[in-house]
Every structure is written in C-alpha cells, then in structure tokens.
C-alpha cells in the first residue's frame, strides 16, 4: 500500500489486532482504521 491509502480492518481479536499493528510498523504512512463491535480486544 502507498502513502495516504486507507486500510480498514473489520473485527479484531486474534488476527485483526496483529494485522493492524504489523501494518502500522511496515507501512507507517498509510491510514489504518479498525472497526469492532466488541467492547474489547481480547488477547487470548
């Protein structure tokens, strides 16, 4: 993805969270939004 492009991640626990965090590390200049319906991100 290129600078300024938008990444949206729907849902987030075991896979969405890691996808978001690594995307941020690898692509610091993209726009990332995570949308989840749950109150929390569960780690386990």
């Amino acid at each position, binding site marked *: *993805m290129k600078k300024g492009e938008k990444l949206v991640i729907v849902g987030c626990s075991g896979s969405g969270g890691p996808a978001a965090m690594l995307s941020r590390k690898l692509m610091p200049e993209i726009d990332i939004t995570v949308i989840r319906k749950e109150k929390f991100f569960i780690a386990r």
Partner: protein
Amino acid sequence: MAGLAASNSIVVPDKMLEGAGINVVQDEVTKVDAANKSVVVSGGEEFKYDKLILATGASSFIPPIEGKDLEGVMTLRGLDDAEKIKSYIADKNPKNIILIGAGFISMEIASLLAEHMPDKFNITVIELMDRPLPLMLDKDMSDSVRQYLEEKGLTILTGEKVEKLIGQDGKVTGVTLASGKKLDAEMVFMNVGVRPNIDLATDIGLDMARFGIKVNPFQETSDPDIMAVGDCVEKINFITQKPTPGQLRGPALLQGRIAAKRLAGYDIEFPGVMDAGGCKMFDMTITATGLTEETAAKEGFETVCAVVDSRSKHAMIPGVKPWKLKLVFDKKTQKLIGGQIVSHAIAPAREIDAVTAFILGGATIPRLTTFTSASNPDIAPEPSAEPITVAAEQALMKLRKS
C-alpha cells in the same frame, strides 16, 4: 476462568492501538459496498477503504437440540462468557454441572472448577467419541488422562450422545442421553465447536469454501481489494494439504501478520495449519501437533507409531515428573506427521514445538534417531532417555520387522 489473570489484563488496550496511530471504532459493520470500496457501520458512518481485511472470527456452535435455550446453558468463547459463568455460579450455586463435549475447552473448565472449588460440584463430561480430547490424543495417550482426571473426581462418560436438555420454569435441570440415562444438572456447558462468522463476506459475494471464506496463501479473497484472516477463513492442513477449519489462535495471529506483510509488498505464504495446541488440567499438561494415528488412518496414511515414557529431569534429581510422548510417522515416506505429549510437568510439554518444527522440516525416522536435545540434569531427561530419539529408534525397529 482460572482467576489467574484479571479480566482487563487479557485485553489489548485501545491505547496501544491508538498510540500507534490506528483509528479504533467500536461499532458493528452492517454493510460492505465492495463496488465503491466503503464500509458502513450501524451508526451510519461510512469508511472508505483502499484495502479491507475481514477478521470477523467465529462463534460458538450450539447444536439444535431441545432445551438449548434454557437458563443455565452456557458456552465459553470470550471474556464476557467467562464473567457470565463466574457470576452464574456465584448467584445460583449449582451443584451438578455437565459439560457436553470433551475437547480442551470443556476439559479445562471442568478441571478449573474442580481444582479451585474442590468438593463443591459434581462434574460430568459427556463425549460422543470414545475418549476425552479425541481430536488431540489417540486412545493410548488419552487413557492416562482419563484415569488421572477420574482420580481427581471428574466423571467422564464417553460414547454417549446428548438427546435433549430438560428444564423446569425455564431453567435447566438435567440432560437426557440417547442411551436412556438421565443426569441432573443445574448448569450445562455446550462446547462442541465453533462456526466462522461469514455473514459480511457472504453479503459481499466473496467466494466461500466448506469451512469459511476462501483465500489464497497470501490471505487474498476473490475480491482483489479484500483480504480475510483468522477463524473466519478456511485453512489448508500442512500435512494433508486438504481444507480444514483450523480455528486456533496461533494460525489466526499468523494470518493477520501475513496479510499485513502482503500489503507491504512481501510474498510470504501461509504454510497451512497443523492444529498444534495445548491445555492444562490440574498439574497435567497436554500438547499435540499434526495428525493423530486415528486421523492419519482416516486420511489414508499407513502409519508407524511409537510411545515413549520419559521424565522431566534426570532420574536422580528431586522433583522429577513423568511425561510421555507419542510420535506418528508416515510409513511410506518415513516422515514425521504428528506428535502428542502428556506430562505431569509443564516444561516437557513444550517439546511439542520441536515436533512441529520437525514436521515443517520434513524430518524422517532415520534423521530423528540422530537428534540430540539440550540436556542438563535439572531441566531434561538423560540424553539416553530423550523421547524423540527413542521414539524414532522404536519406529526404526518396527519398520525393520515389518
């Protein structure tokens, strides 16, 4: 559930994501407009995307049996469920608890309840197959687990099918089995698997597979701008190369990271799942990876197997605990295709990761007879008792005889 960690300590704080510059929205996505590349949430807000990742997970599967909606019938999937269970126990003080399905979630719940509140409950686990942990362990390994748990006070009924849940005034009071038996229960856990959350993907019109959203090894769906990861997608078994649900946290996490790498320009493929997993019950730790002997046979493998008893330390060291390992080999190629560990200490159970690595590397029986582990009297068995090497040698002898 164990009470070993506070609820908020297993939650990834939003601050961690927001601190990394990630926009976090708590809302339900109601529509994905793939043509216009936008997502709409229940509050009406619209989010445009260049790339979309679906990580919608899975939900507990509740079989359509009579009585499933009675009060006191529960599942365990997430934090909310765990808190509901603890609160129900505190409020209703159930005496008889039944767990349907003897997979690792059921067995861990049963053990935790018995361990942390001893003598408070009559706990019965009901399993359709002939043993507890039937997807992780063959019967020769599972028998010792069953004996251990029964000695700890659990009742384990195998080869029994639950016909219906019975209740009174809207509350569960028991279970009727197909064999005609009736068991009292004021609380029933249904842990018989999960199903992928695929409503959004279906609405979009993505290609679907038997066990979830269809993706390629880079986590790309049939829409070039949509990826899917985790429990909502179908996986491929590394050994059989056949489709499988593979709904465990390890593969989910890996797939999330593979999707991120793909978007960043890397070409790293998801290798497939081996269903590597573990569970702990009282002071017994059980781990498994790859195919069991039974599953391998169903998949058409002719196998050669070996079971080795070992110990957590050198025999003369105080505190030594027993553990045992089973390895499953494909007789035709002599390759390792599965492993199971039942251990009375935690550390040896992690040797399953070495088994996984050997499977990934295509290790064969002859090769594994030359394996040497890191050995120290206080942390490992004597090198002569290293169970992977001994199991490989046993398999080698079996091949010679056959």
